[in-house]
Every structure is written in structure tokens, then in C-alpha cells.
């Protein structure tokens, strides 16, 4: 597989003075689905806007399919389809006209059979001659997707595609994303919802305050999430953990009288029974035992909190 999108050290300072991106670097493979996860104002839209040519970049380098987005903007942009976060559509225009415009802008001849196919896939076929102002919000979202797909892009950006969208359309949307992936289209989507990222993405990137905090395979993040901590509270604090317990990889909690054992809930044997036996053999007396889940949500919140604290310092 080859790199489809390469973002190197991209900084963005808006005219107002706000630094929206603080040196973002990211590589995305062809055919991959990457979910960018981050709170409001993290810089997700800014990053996408810079890649697509809607905002200028302060410094750094971006290539799409090997084409520099500034020097070789035509080749780069021909590969890109963009579904913006805002519902930017001309209210009086008919659906088919606005979709045909998008295709034309990308230098392709009008091809009604292709456009019809796109409209059918998005359940917009019967609305093709309807003015956009007569459509519901969800249908307008579909029109934006149809416009983005009108020129068969190799890279698709979906900026918060499921904001304000009902369950049905969300399912449809994921179905379309999977089909596109099957055709080898690279997809970058932004979202506030972890479940959404989990459900669809190959990798998840967490962005906060203009910094990428983590990019990891969804599977391994899930595995992290699948782990549980067993908190063992002792009668007496132990300064050093006895040698006989070394195979359990125990670590101290916030206090010296708490030991933490991490285990995989999916594993055949969690090792808890054996641990408890070994503990009493080592002469440690238990006061209390509890478990806690480390969810992706927790990892995410933790990362963002750490980052904010760092910035404040």
C-alpha cells in the first residue's frame, strides 16, 4: 500500500492571531478510513480546509496522491471530494444542477448516467428536480455527499457527516463509506463520537487544540479499552512488591496500600483466582477489591485533559 495523504508539520495561524494547528503531521494510506476525533475548536475543519484549498496554510507541506496541494493543486484537487461541515447549498437550485456543477468544476464531462447512479445510491433519485430549499436537513446532507461523489474522488473528506442525522441515514452513510472503501477510496472523517469512530475507522486520530495527540489502529485501541483494572486495597502499605508476584506486573495505585492488576476481559483465563491465592501466600491481607474499566472514552478524555494542562502550564 502506498501513502495517499501526507501532512508534514502543518501550522495554521488565522489572521485574528489564533493558532489553530500547531505542527500537525499525519500519513494516511491508500484505501484507509481514518477518523479524526476531537472536541469543538480542535482544528479538524481547519486541517481539512487547508488540504482542500479553502484556507491558506501558514507553514508545512501537504501532498495528496504525491501531488503537492499548492504547487500541483489541480492534480491534487481532482482526487479530492469534500463534504463540508456546514450545509452550504444554494436554496433555489435544483438537486441535479448543483451536482452537475460539482462534476463540471472538476473538469469532467457531464455524465448523467453516472450522476443518476450516485443520486440513486443516496436515495435522491426522486428529488433530482426538486429545489434544495424544499428538502429536509438529512436530504441536504445527502446532496452534499452526492456533490462530493460526483467526480468519483479517490480521497473523500467527511466533516462531521452524522451531526444532526437520524439513525437510518447514519446507517446508510456507513454503508456508503464501506462501499467506497471497497473501491479503494481513502476516507477521512471527523466526529465527536467515539462509537462512530470505532464502528467505521481503520485508525483513529485524536486531535485537541491544534495537536495530534495519538494515532492508533482502532483494533489496538479497542483492546486497550477491553482491558480492566483490578484494584486491590491492602491492610498495610507495601513499599516494594514481593518477588513472588512479579509475573502479574502489578503496579502501585495512587496510594502505597493499593495495587493494580490489569487483565484482558476477553482472555480465556483472567488470572484473578491465582493472583488472590498468591497474594495471601505472600502474606498480604486484603481490605477491599474492585474493578474498573478503562474505556476509549476515558483514554480520550485523559489525553485531552493532559494536553490542556500542559498548555496551561
Amino acid at each position, binding site marked *: 500500500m502506498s501513502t495517499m495523504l501526507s501532512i508534514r508539520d502543518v501550522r495554521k495561524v488565522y489572521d485574528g492571531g489564533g493558532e489553530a494547528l500547531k505542527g500537525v503531521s499525519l500519513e494516511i494510506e491508500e484505501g484507509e478510513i481514518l477518523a479524526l476525533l476531537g472536541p469543538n475548536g480542535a482544528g479538524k475543519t481547519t486541517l481539512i480546509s487547508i488540504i*482542500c484549498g479553502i484556507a491558506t496554510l501558514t507553514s508545512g507541506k501537504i501532498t495528496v496522491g504525491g501531488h503537492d496541494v499548492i504547487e500541483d493543486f*489541480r492534480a491534487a484537487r481532482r482526487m479530492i471530494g469534500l463534504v463540508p461541515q456546514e450545509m452550504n447549498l444554494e436554496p*433555489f437550485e435544483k438537486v441535479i444542477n448543483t451536482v452537475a456543477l460539482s462534476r463540471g468544476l472538476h*473538469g469532467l464531462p457531464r455524465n448523467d448516467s453516472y450522476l443518476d447512479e450516485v443520486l440513486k445510491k443516496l436515495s435522491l433519485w426522486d428529488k433530482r428536480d426538486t429545489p434544495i430549499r424544499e428538502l429536509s436537513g438529512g436530504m441536504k446532507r445527502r446532496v452534499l455527499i452526492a456533490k462530493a461523489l460526483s467526480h468519483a474522488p479517490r480521497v473523500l473528506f467527511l466533516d462531521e457527516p452524522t451531526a444532526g442525522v437520524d439513525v437510518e441515514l447514519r446507517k446508510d452513510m456507513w454503508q456508503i463509506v464501506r462501499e467506497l472503501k471497497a473501491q479503494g477510496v481513502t476516507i477521512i472523517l471527523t466526529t465527536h463520537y467515539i462509537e462512530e469512530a470505532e464502528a467505521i475507522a481503520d485508525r483513529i486520530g485524536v486531535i485537541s487544540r491544534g495537536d495530534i495527540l495519538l494515532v492508533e489502529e482502532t483494533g489496538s485501541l479497542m483492546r486497550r479499552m477491553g482491558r480492566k483494572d483490578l484494584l486491590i486495597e491492602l491492610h498495610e502499605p507495601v513499599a516494594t512488591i514481593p518477588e513472588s508476584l512479579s509475573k502479574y506486573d502489578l503496579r502501585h495505585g495512587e496510594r502505597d496500600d493499593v495495587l493494580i492488576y490489569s487483565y484482558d476481559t476477553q482472555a480465556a483465563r483472567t488470572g484473578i483466582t491465582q493472583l488472590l491465592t498468591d497474594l495471601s501466600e505472600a502474606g498480604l491481607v486484603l481490605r477491599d477489591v474492585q474493578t474498573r474499566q478503562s474505556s476509549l472514552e476515558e483514554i480520550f478524555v485523559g489525553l485531552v485533559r493532559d494536553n490542556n494542562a500542559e498548555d496551561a502550564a
Partner: protein
Amino acid sequence: MNWRAIQAIYIYEMTRTVRTIWQSVVSPVISTSLYFVVFGTAIGSRIDQVEGVAYGSFIVPGLIMLSVIMQSISNASFGIYFPKFIGTIYELLAAPINFLEIVIGYVGAAATKALIIGLIILATANLFVDIRIEHPVAMVAFLVLTCLSFSLMGFIIGIWAKNFEQLQLVPLLIVTPLVFLGGSFYSITMLPETWQKITLFNPVVYLVSGFRWSFFGMADVALGWSLLAIAGFTGLCLGIIWWIFRTGWRIKA
């Protein structure tokens, strides 16, 4: 050149024009008729002739210029302001097109509409007075160039404007006075000498004069100056637009 993109913009813009064709055509036709009633009939009954041309016929080139200039500016400024206003400009910025292609598409459509309206006014005028056109090719050339250059100016205004008031401001405060004082309804030779000199700083004078020459073979200023003025104005507008797109001024964050 991405000709397909230019074509797509042009067709899209012209479709919008067709959708509102009645608004676009009816009002210039009515206002032209009113001008004929007021200027042609009321004043014409006193002025009779200007340099051998009946006053009613004499004002036709000026009237056409007036409408064409106003139409070009309002079509083009609205054409590009509207996508900025509703946010659809993202699509132009993210497309594989450069500034020249965007300009050709938008300005071409705005100028076409202005040209059509100019011709409709000519036809309307023909119902009221006798019109002879001595240099038809030059007449069309002047008309086309005027449509293009003022559409370029309108395009700049549309990008510059931050709200609908500003969109109206330049046409109202600058263009209307220039056009009315540009010899549309009189020959500048009818003015006192000082005013004649001042008037020569008004670019519209050169346009109207050249255009009138193509009708009646007589002009207030030499034809060469008219051509130079329109070429210079077009060049200036193109330069400003090139700078706008290079810097992303008022279009890119």
C-alpha cells in the same frame, strides 16, 4: 485551462438568469421607456437636435450604456457575492481551477446577460425613434467590451463587499453619478469650458463617446482615446482580480 469548469460555471449562472428572466428583462425595458418619455419627449421638444442628430435618437447610445453598465456591475457583483454569502464558495476554492477560470465563468455569464439586456433596450428604443448604426461591428465591439469590463469591476465589488449594503454602495455612490455625468444625455460640448475639462477625468465619457460614434459617426473625444480608456480600465480590473486570488483577500481564511 479547465474549460469544462468554465463551461459548468457559465451554464450554472445562465440557468439562474433564465430562472429570473422576467425580473431581469422587464425592469430595464420599463425604465428605458420612461427615459424616452421624460428625456426624449419633454426635453427633446426643446432641444430638437444635437450636432445634426434628433435628440431622441441622440440619447439612445447613452441610454444603452447606462443600463449595460449598471447591469454588468449588479450581475457580476451579485453573482460572486451570493456564493460567498451562503457559503457555496467552498466548492470553487476546492475545485481544480485557477482564478482566471473562475473569472471567465462568472464574468462571462454576467456580461452575457448585460449584453442581452443592452440589445433588448436597443430594440425597445427602435420602437420610439429612428436609429441608424453607421459602424455596426464597432457598435457590437464597444458593447461587448463595456459589458466585460464593468462585469470585471462588479466581480471585484462582489468580492470586496461584506454585506448587501456594501454591494449597493459603489454602484450608487460612484457609478451612477459617473454615468449620468458621462454625457449619456448630452454632448459634453454643450457644457461650459471648465466643466468640459473636468468631465474628461470621467472614464464613462470615453465609453459613451466611442459608442455614440459607432452609431452616428461623431464623437466628443477622439476614438483612439475611447479605445485606450476601455483597454486601460479592463487591464486595471484584471490586475486587481489577479491580486485578489493570489492573496485570497476576503475569500480565503
